[in-house]
């Protein structure tokens, strides 16, 4: 909200602070009324002055341009080119001299227009930011003094604060309201505006009948007629004040209602009284299905629970939100009925939110207005209307106010105050601050404190703790000392999810993976296209909703649905990096994916990885690129080893079960504890084609909960054998259909306890080998924990192994 310091000065003396507005701003900010910006209006019109057109001629090279000689008080006449047509010799105009910066960062420079030099610009109201549209340049009254800074001429020697008022401080949403707060802060008195007028018109009550049917939502409704007004433009002083606080001038009547709202914080509405059917105002709910057209022409269909202002047969305003087109003030309006009411916060909020309308009026009502200020605001507006639009004010007025409003009394003890603050609070000081806030304070011996009643405009002061805050902020938060709360009980452990996520993430970082964090939502179309049929994901242990949970009000299509998998996001990250020339990389993400179950929304944690290319390494033993999928698989195996998980298997999914973004021949699903818990593989070649990828890309996603089940597992120490180990190699010619690991498993199974370790150390294909076969070499390390192995026992074991394997797998030993 914008506050003009000059306007504020009408109610509290801040003249001494005009030259140092930042001091007042700091005070307000320190008290919780944040001043976001201070604008010195005079500076806005730097190098803009009043000028006098001495001569108006024709531009020699352009029919549509005039060439003027202008006296702008610079000691000599300035030659200025002008494109407008509404000016004539002798006019007083607004001249922007070189160096001026007009709204929109439009800098005025000495320039040549069609080969003729122009020493400035004659400005229109639009160019000065004073109107949305203007027909030509601004012509000033004849008596305007040449050379006067335009800011001075307009009364813009003012400072405007942009305030950020928190929702609890509705009482500060007006100049008078803020003056009250400033008065309290500075310990200065403040003056209430008065309504001083002659009520020479007829009876308002006889003219318009009032009926309030819904007094629980409308505790007070006042109204007064003003007869025979002349609707027209507002005078400059009114326009200027409204402009300063960011309101556009509409006509003198509407301007006055806005002015009083900005002055007192009470929203008002002026009806064209002659449009009110049956000369009636009824405060009542809407009829279900009824149509209502607001002032700006938008049509709304009403549900029936909106609080409305109605006339004899139709709605004429959405109470506290917006007036109706059918009864607004127009140029033809002669008699008006001015509404000043107190509507309940909830009623206005509900309507405004449901219909998606926020007006200056609904903004204030929904935060809470002052029920006691209703009549003053109405009369103030009547006075000003008479001043700017003539007419006669109704001799009497409606004031429906069956129950006088007052806030409940708050009991607060001195010890409570001190305990919440954490420092000693002076009793007298508390009483002083409460008084300055307009609270009724009574000391209570019984309470060891006070009984405090907040003024009607302070809806936020409901409980003792609210008064603690008032004391703390007015006294200054800088007085709050820094103490340390003692720890009375033993600390609790971190939640398992946090601990386990960190553990897993640390292990993946050690594997050379960079952690990615993507948004929890993504583009539904893009993700569905990438993921393909979701039953395939389910078949590898990653249950995935076909339709993600939709967001009702997404920012854009890019984030319209909660993610069902981490891989679309990681793939996008990969593409981003790849396109920036990063031909090798490893990324992982641990995060939640979303779905629906019988119990409602379901969030499950996953870990996903993407790896591509290899870092450039001069020590690499081969220059041919290793399929990235082995890097990724190796990392997962290291991870499992570090999690002390030894009993797992890689299973080859059937081609029709491989997720469609993975190469059907290069996929492996992880089987653990009786079920599949995720998959890894090479990106499907069609994606390489589509995205012009020259490298093989590996991807994988795993169920976090399954991976981390039973973690942390404790290592168990074993004794180390004193006896020597013996190594043996075996190589087989293996058909491509037999997985190399199956033979390894068989070696382990058959060797029993004597085998300490076994691994595949060489795979060779091509050369003289039979087609469709490869040579796979296994190394075994045998050790007997009880003694040295005899050569004989070893030879026998090896023989048994070879026979067993050949028999089982149709392979030949080499």
């Amino acid at each position, binding site marked *: 909200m914008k506050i003009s310091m000059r306007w504020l000065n009408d109610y509290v003396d801040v003249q001494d602070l005009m030259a140092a507005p930042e001091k007042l701003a700091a005070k307000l900010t320190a008290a919780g009324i944040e001043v976001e910006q201070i604008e010195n209006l005079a500076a806005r019109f730097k190098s803009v002055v009043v000028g006098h057109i001495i001569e108006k001629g024709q531009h020699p090279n352009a029919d549509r341009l005039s060439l003027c000689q202008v006296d702008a008080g610079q000691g000599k006449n300035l030659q200025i080119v002008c494109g407008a047509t509404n000016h004539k010799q002798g006019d007083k105009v607004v001249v922007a001299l070189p160096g001026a910066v007009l709204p929109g960062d439009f800098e005025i420079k000495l320039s040549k227009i069609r080969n003729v030099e122009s020493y400035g610009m004659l400005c229109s109201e639009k160019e000065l930011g004073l109107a949305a549209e203007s027909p030509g340049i601004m012509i000033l009254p004849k008596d305007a003094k040449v050379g006067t800074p335009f800011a001075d001429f307009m009364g813009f020697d003012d400072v405007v604060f942009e305030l950020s008022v928190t929702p609890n401080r509705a009482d500060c949403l007006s100049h008078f309201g803020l003056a009250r707060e400033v008065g309290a802060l500075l310990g200065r008195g403040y003056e209430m505006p008065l309504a001083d007028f002659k009520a020479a018109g007829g009876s308002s009550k006889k003219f318009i009948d009032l009926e309030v049917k819904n007094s629980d939502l409308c505790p007070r409704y006042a109204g007064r007629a003003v007869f025979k007004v002349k609707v027209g433009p507002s005078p400059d002083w009114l326009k200027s004040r409204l402009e300063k606080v960011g309101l556009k001038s509409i006509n003198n009547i509407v301007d006055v209602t806005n002015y009083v709202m900005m002055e007192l914080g009470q929203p008002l509405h002026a009806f064209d009284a002659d449009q009110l059917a049956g000369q009636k105002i009824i405060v009542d709910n809407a009829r279900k299905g009824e149509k209502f057209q607001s002032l700006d022409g938008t049509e709304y269909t009403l549900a029936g629970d909106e609080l409305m202002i109605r006339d004899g047969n139709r709605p004429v305003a959405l109470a506290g939100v917006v007036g109706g087109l059918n009864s607004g003030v127009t140029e033809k309006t002669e008699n008006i009925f001015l509404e000043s009411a107190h509507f309940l916060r909830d009623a206005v909020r509900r309507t405004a939110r449901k219909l998606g309308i926020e007006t200056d009026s609904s903004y204030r009502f929904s935060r809470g207005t002052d029920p006691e200020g209703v009549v003053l605001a109405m009369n103030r507006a009547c006075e000003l209307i008479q001043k700017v639009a003539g007419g006669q004010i109704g001799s009497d007025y409606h004031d429906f106010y069956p129950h006088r409003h007052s806030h409940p009394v708050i009991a607060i003890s001195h010890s409570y105050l001190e305990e919440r603050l*954490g420092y000693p609070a002076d009793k007298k000081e508390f009483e002083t601050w409460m008084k300055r806030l307009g609270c009724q304070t009574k000391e209570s011996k019984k309470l060891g404190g006070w009984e405090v009643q907040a003024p009607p405009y302070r809806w936020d002061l409901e409980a003792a703790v609210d008064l603690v805050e008032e004391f703390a902020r007015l006294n200054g938060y800088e007085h709050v000392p820094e103490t*340390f709360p003692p720890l009375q009980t033993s600390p609790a452990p971190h939640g398992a999810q946090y601990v386990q996520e960190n553990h897993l993430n640390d292990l993946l970082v050690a594997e050379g993976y960079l*952690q990615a964090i993507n948004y929890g939502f993504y583009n539904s179309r893009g993700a569905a296209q990438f993921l393909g049929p979701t039953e395939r994901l389910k078949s590898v242990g990653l249950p995935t909703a076909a339709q993600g949970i939709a*967001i009702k009000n997404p*920012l854009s299509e890019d984030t319209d649905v909660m993610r069902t998998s981490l891989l679309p996001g990681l793939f996008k*990250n990969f593409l981003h990096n790849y396109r920036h020339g990063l031909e090798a990389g490893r990324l992982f993400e641990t995060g939640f994916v979303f779905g629906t179950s019988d119990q409602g929304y379901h969030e499950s944690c996953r870990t996903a990885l993407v790896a591509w290319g290899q870092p450039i390494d001069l020590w690499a033993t081969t220059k041919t690129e290793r399929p990235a999928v082995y890097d990724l698989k190796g990392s997962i195996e290291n991870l499992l080893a570090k999690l002390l998980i030894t009993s797992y298997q890689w299973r080859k999914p059937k081609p029709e079960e491989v997720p469609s973004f993975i190469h059907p021949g290069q996929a492996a699903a992880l089987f653990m504890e009786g079920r599949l818990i995720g998959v890894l593989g090479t990106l499907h070649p069609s994606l390489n084609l589509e995205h012009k990828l020259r490298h093989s890309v590996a991807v994988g996603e795993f169920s976090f909960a399954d991976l981390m089940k039973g973690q942390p597992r404790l290592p168990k120490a074993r004794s180390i054998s004193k006896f020597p180990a013996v190594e043996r190699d075996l190589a087989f010619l293996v058909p491509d259909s037999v997985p190399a690991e199956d033979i390894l498993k068989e070696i382990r199974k058959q060797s029993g306890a004597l085998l300490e370790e076994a691994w595949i150390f060489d795979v060779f294909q091509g050369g003289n080998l039979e087609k469709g076969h490869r040579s796979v070499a296994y190394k075994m390390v045998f050790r007997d924990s009880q003694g040295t192995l005899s050569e004989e026992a070893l030879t026998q074991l090896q023989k048994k192994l070879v026979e067993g394997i050949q028999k089982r797998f149709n392979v030949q030993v080499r």
Partner: protein
Amino acid sequence: MLSEKLQAIHKEAVAAFNAAKDSKDLYELKVKYLGKQGPLAGLMREMAGLSKEEKPLFGKLVNEVKQGLEDHYSQREAALAQAELNQKIATEALDLSLPGPVRARGARHPIQKVINEVVEILSRIGYSVRTGPMIEKDWYNFEALNIPADHPARDMQDTFYIDESHVLRTHTSPIQIRTMESEKPPLRILAPGSVFRCDSDVSHSPNFHQIEGLLIDRKVSMADLKGTIAYFVKEYFGPEIKIRFRPSFFPFTEPSAEVDCSCPICKGKGCRMCKHSGWIEIGGSGLVNPKVLAHCKLNPDEWQGFAFGFGMERMAIIKYGIEDIRLFAENDLRFLRQFEA
């Protein structure tokens, strides 16, 4: 005669040993002169024809020559070995300006890094982490936190809606409610996590991260809150960093305070980061509103609390000088690698 022969053998062998080019050569000469088939062994065999008196004398002579040759051999062997080692060393120089093998290095995302740093500092004074769902019930995200439906405070947080009664959590504060419901006070918890606001521009991301702290105990004051945050800020940004409270409004706390710290970049002198004010806003805080305690079935006359919340992106921006909020979600390797420390 024999002794002349002996002298000749000795002379020849010494010359041969001296001429040997390398230790292999030398060893072959050793075998040649000192071996079983060598001339000395031959002379010993010839001794059979000598008289009983001559035998020991000549035997001694042969042994002396043999010992002399063996000693000479050892000397030569050592010298050659040394020369060979020197030669080997001289040819083995490596260019250690070449790098070691390249292994991919991983790193935590800066947001995760900040979360862990904050958790570590506050764990030391008894706080432990709790987590909660992101699709949250309206009750936990709003109502229980004293933000009723249609309240203007809801406009403070632009909300993504899932259905009538569920939203994407706009803060991690629902975790306080869930913890107060399920655990017995006193409590000291931290709730880090991903939060969502329907807002996106140069300085706002629709999905960002927060950490919230909650303390529930029998007597809790603003001073305790300020002391705790001051401890955290000094640990996190440095011992010279000060904090400042500014009054504010959050429906779930009363009194409420925005927390500023003296700018860690310019040490309060004024810079671009702090918009030349010397102060940087880092979060919100306050005493837990008694209405919130009551919603969690805690008696406000018995239990009190304070809560504070920080934005993780903002922390990372301040601590690591990150200039563009969009970098956090882009996951560019060149960005992520900067945080491997």
